[in-house]
């Protein structure tokens, strides 16, 4: 027992916390830092699926029938597997066309039919109000369990002003009004409300898990203990088996399937789910995470359902205590009142979350699709009348919220203990499942028509009412129960739970079968019977092809409207329903997008009319928006041919746009190529600059010595002969260096520019190498070096320029001669075949090339060794050699370890690439 004042205090404390969170969310949104633009928050807000019916009812269901509570959660898990395909499309459609409710969605799909919108709204209200009552009952029951102790069943009679449930309902109405009707356009999200709902999802999960842990480990020794002790009770043994007493054979596959299907549909179609999943969705990408977080949430909240259900029955004795209150009564009976209170807050959060979102969703529908159309018919409220309506609209919506909640309260009060309320969760599910064909099929099948949707909904709803709703009303004792058993007027065939003699199904599966059969049958049949009108066809296109055509501002998306409109009329209409500010923004944005400087210069063309209508749809629903826009403009009736024509225009425009894109892409490509070419030229220019600078340096150096020494000799006729001789010797050698340099620079330039002459013949490399070594033998003798030549017996001929190859050989040989140690030099020359090529190696026993210089020896003007000990050279020999070898498709490289001598080698292919190519061409 907990004092009533404490329970009430905690309840209202919790509600105040919700207010604070919602206020925080709204303030952050106003600052532009959305708290709900977050995949976690989005996923948590989807858990509004778990209501008090889950929180208390799952345990009750599990206590009565074992694992049958599970399909209600398996369905959503399966549905989330399809989220990326189905829900993303729903989100895209809703955001593109500013659809704010499920009634609006269906009505908009079938030509913005007000009739369809009204029908969907009516079905929703009939189906959902009892569900709302159920939540209030759960709060009330929980309150009585806590305050009256677990033994007190039922409601004691109290005056209404003392009724905490009413107070909670009123507080929730206040919450919903404050955070649900801040602004009119539901496309601008209810940030604070969503944040509060996400918070509630955490509270109820933690609370339920706490109770579960308390029961499993506090009252028992873990789950295994519960199972084993449950075996002692024959009633409980059955719960742990899938098929009940008689085993798996009697397992109700049909019922299991029906329940799973039902919950799969309801997770998409319940007004609160549609509100959270579609309308409040900030970013489609959040779906990716929600697709696994939401099922994981459902899994978590179900982990302890069976342990609590069975544990409670073991403790209290099977059937001795209402299992739906186990969550509260177990902690309460075992000295944990604080936990019981927390569990109650969890239940409160489950109930209030559902109440808030459901009320917003239902009140939007009631306002837009029931109240607005009636008001529009009244004179003085019509679209052409003046005055700002936004405040009135908000008031209507606030009134609707209060009405929906009070209706739920009334229902709870009148039918609180009736059978109708206990099973209402599933009955509600079955009611909203009737939306499935019109909504889901309509998203993928263009052929669905308004007549089909109306027929399907009416037929399905009628079947639902007859086979499910009426019997449950009868069982509550409000109408004679006899017709349930024997059919009306004693006609057995029409018995509502065994319609046309269909036996062997439980009443829910039975009802679902008949209602969906009638629904789908009528929907498809009527759709095929009559072709859709132009407006239906155009809306069908916009829905089914939303990813291709739906871009709200894309110039190429088709606008199915023809007629004449005046800018003033549109402006007046927009001002009345959006307020002057938002209307002004709307026109300015449009002007900016199409590139018109002044709003007053806008032309009221189809695109502008469409834009205004979309904006209005966010405020009053698309059906009402359609009626209002139609009343201020002169429309030409749209025929199917017009629709096709408009589509053609749009696709032509799209074609142009694509061609333009292609062109600009091609241009970009060309620009990039040009830029790359320019960069290459610049770097070539830079290279040439470097080369010239190096050449200049190399030419000036010998010139410097020549000039200086000559001048000195000229100035000093009395110079000693020895000195003069030394100077002259230097002058001569520097002159030689100069002419060698000039020759090589010219050679290099010729090869590089491609002007070198090549005299190709068949060359015997063995002979060529031998001759080159003989020519260089004088050099080696001077240095006292020994040469070892290794030639194969047979060498294939190669096509090449023998003079150039000799030049290469001589260069390598003279390099080797320069670097070998005096008197002890050894030079090896090897020729060998290597696959389809010939390799020549020249190695010496000189100092080798330092690691740091190996990479650059083939670059121009990079002479090896230090200047003093370096033999004369120009720094162009090796670069020229490499150019020559490259020319013949070969490769030249250096292998050297410092101190271990150097080995310069090159490889020539037997068939140079250009010959290969030529041969291929001739084939």
């Amino acid at each position, binding site marked *: 027992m907990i004092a009533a004042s404490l329970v009430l205090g905690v309840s209202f404390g919790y509600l105040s916390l919700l207010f604070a969170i919602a206020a925080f969310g709204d303030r952050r949104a106003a600052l532009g830092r959305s708290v709900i633009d977050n995949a976690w928050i989005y996923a948590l807000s989807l858990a509004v699926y778990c209501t008090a019916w889950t929180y208390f009812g799952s345990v009750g269901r599990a206590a009565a029938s074992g694992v049958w509570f599970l399909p209600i959660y398996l369905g959503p898990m399966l549905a989330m597997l399809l989220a990326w395909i189905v829900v993303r499309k729903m989100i895209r459609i809703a955001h593109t066309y500013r659809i704010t409710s499920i009634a609006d969605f269906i009505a908009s799909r079938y030509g913005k039919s007000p009739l369809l919108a009204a029908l969907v709204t009516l079905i929703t209200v009939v189906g959902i109000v009892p569900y709302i009552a159920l939540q209030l009952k759960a709060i009330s029951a929980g309150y009585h369990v806590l305050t009256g102790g677990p033994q007190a069943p039922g409601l004691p009679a109290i005056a209404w002003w003392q009724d905490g449930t009413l107070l909670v309902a009123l507080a929730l109405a206040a919450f919903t009004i404050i955070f649900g009707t801040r602004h009119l356009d539901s496309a601008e999200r209810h940030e604070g409300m969503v944040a509060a709902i996400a918070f509630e999802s955490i509270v109820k999960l933690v609370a339920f898990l706490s109770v579960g842990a308390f029961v499993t480990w506090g009252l028992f020794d873990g789950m295994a203990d519960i199972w084993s002790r449950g075996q002692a009770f024959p009633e409980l043994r059955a719960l742990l088996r899938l098929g009940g007493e008689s085993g798996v054979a009697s397992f109700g596959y049909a019922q299991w399937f029906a329940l799973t299907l039902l919950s799969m549909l309801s997770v998409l179609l319940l007004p609160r789910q549609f509100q959270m999943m579609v309308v409040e969705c900030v970013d489609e990408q959040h779906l990716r995470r929600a697709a696994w977080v939401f099922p994981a949430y459902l899994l978590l909240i179900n982990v302890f359902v069976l342990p609590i259900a069975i544990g409670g029955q073991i403790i209290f004795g099977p059937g001795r205590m209402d299992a739906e209150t186990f969550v509260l009564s177990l902690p309460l009976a075992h000295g944990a009142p604080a936990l019981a209170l927390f569990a109650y807050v969890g239940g409160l959060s489950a109930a209030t979350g559902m109440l808030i979102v459901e009320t917003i969703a239902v009140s939007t529908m009631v306002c837009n699709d029931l109240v607005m159309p009636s008001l529009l018919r009244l004179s003085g409220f019509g679209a052409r009348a003046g005055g700002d309506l936004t405040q009135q609209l908000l008031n209507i919506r606030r009134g609707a919220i209060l009405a929906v909640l009070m209706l739920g309260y009334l229902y709870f009060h009148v039918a609180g203990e009736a059978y109708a309320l206990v099973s209402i969760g599933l009955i509600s599910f079955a009611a909203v499942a009737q939306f499935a064909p019109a909504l889901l099929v309509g998203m993928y099948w263009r052929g669905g028509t308004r007549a089909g949707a109306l027929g399907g909904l009416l037929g399905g709803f009628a079947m639902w009412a007859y086979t499910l709703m009426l019997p449950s009303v009868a069982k509550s004792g409000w109408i004679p129960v006899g017709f349930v058993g024997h059919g009306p007027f004693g006609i057995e065939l029409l018995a509502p739970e065994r319609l046309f003699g269909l036996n062997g199904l439980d009443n829910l599966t039975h009802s679902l079968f008949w209602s969906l059969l009638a629904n789908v049958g009528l929907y498809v049949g009527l759709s095929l019977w009559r072709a859709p009108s132009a407006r239906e066809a155009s809306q069908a296109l916009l829905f089914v092809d939303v990813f291709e055509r739906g871009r709200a501002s894309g110039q190429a998306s088709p606008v199915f409207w023809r007629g004449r409109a005046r800018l003033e009329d549109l402006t007046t209409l927009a001002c009345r329903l959006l307020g002057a500010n938002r209307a002004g923004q709307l026109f300015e944005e449009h002007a900016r997008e199409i590139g018109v400087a002044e709003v007053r210069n806008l032309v009221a063309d189809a695109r502008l009319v469409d834009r205004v209508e979309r904006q209005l749809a966010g405020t009053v629903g698309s059906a009402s928006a359609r009626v209002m826009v139609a009343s201020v403009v002169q429309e030409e009736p749209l025929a199917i041919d017009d629709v096709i024509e408009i589509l053609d225009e749009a696709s032509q425009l799209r074609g142009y746009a694509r061609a333009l894109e292609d062109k600009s892409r091609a241009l970009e490509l060309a620009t990039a190529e040009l830029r790359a070419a320019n960069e290459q030229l610049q770097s070539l220019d830079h290279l040439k600059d470097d080369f010239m600078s190096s050449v200049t*340096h190399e030419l000036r*150096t*010998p*010139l410097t*010595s020549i000039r200086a*020494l000559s001048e000195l000799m000229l*100035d000093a006729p009395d110079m000693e002969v020895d000195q003069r001789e030394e100077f002259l010797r230097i002058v001569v050698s520097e002159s030689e260096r100069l002419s060698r340099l000039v020759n090589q620079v010219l050679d290099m330039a010729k090869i590089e520019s491609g002007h070198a002459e090549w005299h190709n013949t068949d060359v015997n490399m063995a002979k060529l190498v031998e001759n080159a070594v003989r020519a260089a033998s004088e050099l080696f003798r001077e240095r006292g070096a020994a040469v070892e030549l290794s030639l194969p017996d047979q060498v294939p001929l190669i096509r090449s320029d023998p003079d150039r190859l000799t030049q290469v050989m001589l260069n390598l040989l003279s390099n080797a001669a320069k670097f070998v140690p005096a008197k002890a030099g050894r030079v090896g020359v090897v020729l060998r075949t290597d696959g389809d090529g010939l390799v020549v190696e020249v190695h010496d026993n000189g100092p080798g090339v330092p690691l740091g210089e190996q990479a650059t020896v083939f670059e121009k003007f990079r002479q090896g060794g*230090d*200047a*003093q000990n370096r033999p004369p050279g120009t720094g162009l020999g090796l670069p020229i050699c490499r150019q020559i070898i490259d020319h013949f498709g070969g490769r030249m490289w250096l292998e050297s370890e410092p101190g271990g001598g150097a080995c310069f080698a090159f490889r020539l292919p037997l068939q140079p690439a250009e010959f290969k190519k030529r041969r291929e061409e001739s084939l």
Partner: protein
Amino acid sequence: MSLKVLVADDEPNIVVSLEFMMKREGYEVLVARDGRQALEAIRRERPQLVLLDAMMPGMSGFDVCEAVRADEAVRDTQILMLTAKGRDTDVARGVGVGADAYMTKPFSTRDLMQKVRDMLA
């Protein structure tokens, strides 16, 4: 006491000519074959003038010049930079790092001697 002149160049034949000219003028001549040797010689021998080749392997003449100007003990050493690269940018660079004078190769022996005399005056 005769004036000390350091000749720093990696081209042996240019060293020969410069050494001859300086000796004939009566200076005491030191020779360095690269930048590092040159810097060491400047710090050790404190020559009054350095004939510094701009392009030497390892440490270039520009680097040497910079190091000299940064060194408190030898920063007053006169530096005549010689370079075989005659572009304006090279001249600017030489002056930028603090050379007192700059001549391009090949030079006129008379001009060079005149410049040396002026600098040591």
